């Protein structure tokens, strides 16, 4: 029978292979799913894994989708490494978008391109405020950050709804729930003409570098990690868990807010109820599959973007529901967690040993006298 045996040291090979293995299992399950739905599995896999990479345009679209995922996941990686469970990045994304939109709508016909900077900064600050609430409630009242941050996602969605159905509704918008389309001056600068991809990609790559340095070359990063790995050791060393809490939450809130600002001032160009696209939740998966490592996150973000784009293509080309994307993403995380066990455990075959009969109890007589053999 199969038996799990602890490895003396964590397997570095499995650390890298585990996400690959998880992906392989997910693909297998996906293939089965395609067949059950009566679709050609090869075509399905093609749409998910080849189409998104086929042309330069496709690659830029991939980069565009990956940008918010990378940005948010970097912040979440810091959080999860510090054992701070920020699940509400989606809400911080929305509030960042709202803040950015608020600033963007101040632009007049004569405003210069410089307005992009305050728009993005507003997004960062908006996200930080939203995650700051979580930090405050945990710091002051010990309230569980998982539930608080999650509840704030629902609240953020409602705030967004209120704004786009109410005070911020475009009067010339035929009563659709949407704000005015932002002026071109506020749009995030594009990288190349003819493609939608913008400087967000550059920001994401810079962020990857910055977070790598933070986590692996600064004492602050070390403190955060120790706080997550061994809280008693962090206390012994004198690392402040409060500082870690606030740093992790403000950082991840800011990153999520920045992603929100880039979405709204970039491809969307206005605020609508569809701003929350689930990036905040997908980024959780991106962070994990990327092993909570800045470089790994680049790869897992690209993978998740392929799932997104593939899902859209599968809908238009194969008539498959878009929610398939969500299924694959959730499945990927699930299988990853299972495969991660192989980092710490080995699988061994243990031949079943011949089992002697069950232990014989002492005859009753001896028990009651309680003396002697």
């Amino acid at each position: 029978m199969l038996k799990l045996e602890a490895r003396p040291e964590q397997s570095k090979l499995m650390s890298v292979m585990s996400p690959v293995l998880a992906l392989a299992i997910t693909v297998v399950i996906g293939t089965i799913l395609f067949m059950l739905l009566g679709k050609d599995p090869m075509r399905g896999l093609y749409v998910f894994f080849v189409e998104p990479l086929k042309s330069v345009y496709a690659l830029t679209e991939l980069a565009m989708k990956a940008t918010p995922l990378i940005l948010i996941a970097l912040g979440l990686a810091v959080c999860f490494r510090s054992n701070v469970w920020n699940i509400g990045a989606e809400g911080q994304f929305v509030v960042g978008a709202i803040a950015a939109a608020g600033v963007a709508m101040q632009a007049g016909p004569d405003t210069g391109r410089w307005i992009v900077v305050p728009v993005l900064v507003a997004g960062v600050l908006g996200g930080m405020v939203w995650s700051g609430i979580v930090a405050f409630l945990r710091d002051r009242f010990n309230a569980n950050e998982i539930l608080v941050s999650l509840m704030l996602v629902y609240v953020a969605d409602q705030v967004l709804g209120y704004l786009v159905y109410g005070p911020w509704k475009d009067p010339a918008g035929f009563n659709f729930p949407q704000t005015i389309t932002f002026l071109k001056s506020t749009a995030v600068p594009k990288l190349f003409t003819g493609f939608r991809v913008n400087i967000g990609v550059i920001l994401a790559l810079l962020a990857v570098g910055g977070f790598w340095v933070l986590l692996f070359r600064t004492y602050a990063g070390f403190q955060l990690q120790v706080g997550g790995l061994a809280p008693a050791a962090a206390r012994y060393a004198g690392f402040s868990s409060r500082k870690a809490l606030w740093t992790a939450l403000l950082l991840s809130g800011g990153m999520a807010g920045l992603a929100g600002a880039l979405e709204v001032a970039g491809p969307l160009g206005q605020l609508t109820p569809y701003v929350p696209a689930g990036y905040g939740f997908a980024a959780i998966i991106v962070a994990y599959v990327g092993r909570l490592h800045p470089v790994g996150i680049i790869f897992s973000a690209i993978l998740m973007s392929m799932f997104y784009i593939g899902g859209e293509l599968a809908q238009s080309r194969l008539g498959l529901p878009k929610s398939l994307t969500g299924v694959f993403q959730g499945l990927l995380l699930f299988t990853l967690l299972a495969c991660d066990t192989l980092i710490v455990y080995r699988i061994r075959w243990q031949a079943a040993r011949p089992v002697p009969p069950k232990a014989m109890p002492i005859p009753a007589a001896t028990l009651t006298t309680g003396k002697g053999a």
Partner: protein
Amino acid sequence: MDSFALLLAATLNSGTVLAFAALGLLINERAGIVNLGAEGIMLVAAVAGYATAVHTGSDTLAFAGGAAAGALLAAAFGVLVIWLNTNQYATGLALSLFGVGFSAFVGIGYTQAKLGERPNFAVPYLSDIPFVGPAFFRQHPMVYLAIALTAALAWFLYRSRAGLVLRAVGESPESAHALGYPVRRIRLFAVMVGGALCGISGAYISVVYTPLWVEGMVAGKGWIALALTTFATWRPARVLLGAYLFGGVTMLQFALQGEGVQIASQFLTMMPYLATILVLVLISRNATFIRVNMPASIGKPFFPGS
């Protein structure tokens, strides 16, 4: 007066949803396992229950279907968390994320399907008493089942040996293991029962509460149920009361709208979520109080033979 009676009735109805889920989570957490996948389980169970109701026309089978779906998902979660010792929080989240996508996927065929005519339930004689009748005795049988379940669970936890064993496992799985109890099997059982109850809650939402299927219709009740178990310090009677309290808050938004209160609807919709935050803040303030009442092994991995 009439509308107040209806408000009470609606509160009971709404509270029952949370009650089943929170009681299930209570069983989980008493064994030391926190299942953040509650929302995902409830969604999948909701669509499973709805589909069963559409195809068989039987409410009972729908609840059975929801319970089965919940138990199955919880079992997958349990195997990972209990035998492979994966991080409980991350695994639960994975389950929720999966459940969101999977339920939307499976439910596509059912957004247009309608259930048959919904029967009106009424307890004979009692339901005719003025005020009390319409308030309390015109409910779906599951509402009364929830109350019975609460009582049964309280008896089980505090008066039975099996309940003591469960509490012991949640307190210190290492000690229970040293005494020879099959800790992992007990935990898996608790997780599956908890999942089944969350499943019943999900089926209740789609079959009784708002008889239809819409993507994401659980709308965070799984998360609220998680908060509820902490708020109730893991005691069944308090869970039930808390569930009704939240049910009341949820219903309040409709009552206020009905009264013509001039607030944008979104702020009313926010109320249950803000209430959850408030409740968490209130109960968590006293860290010592929580630590004394909380099953000590929650969230921590258990390695037998170490």
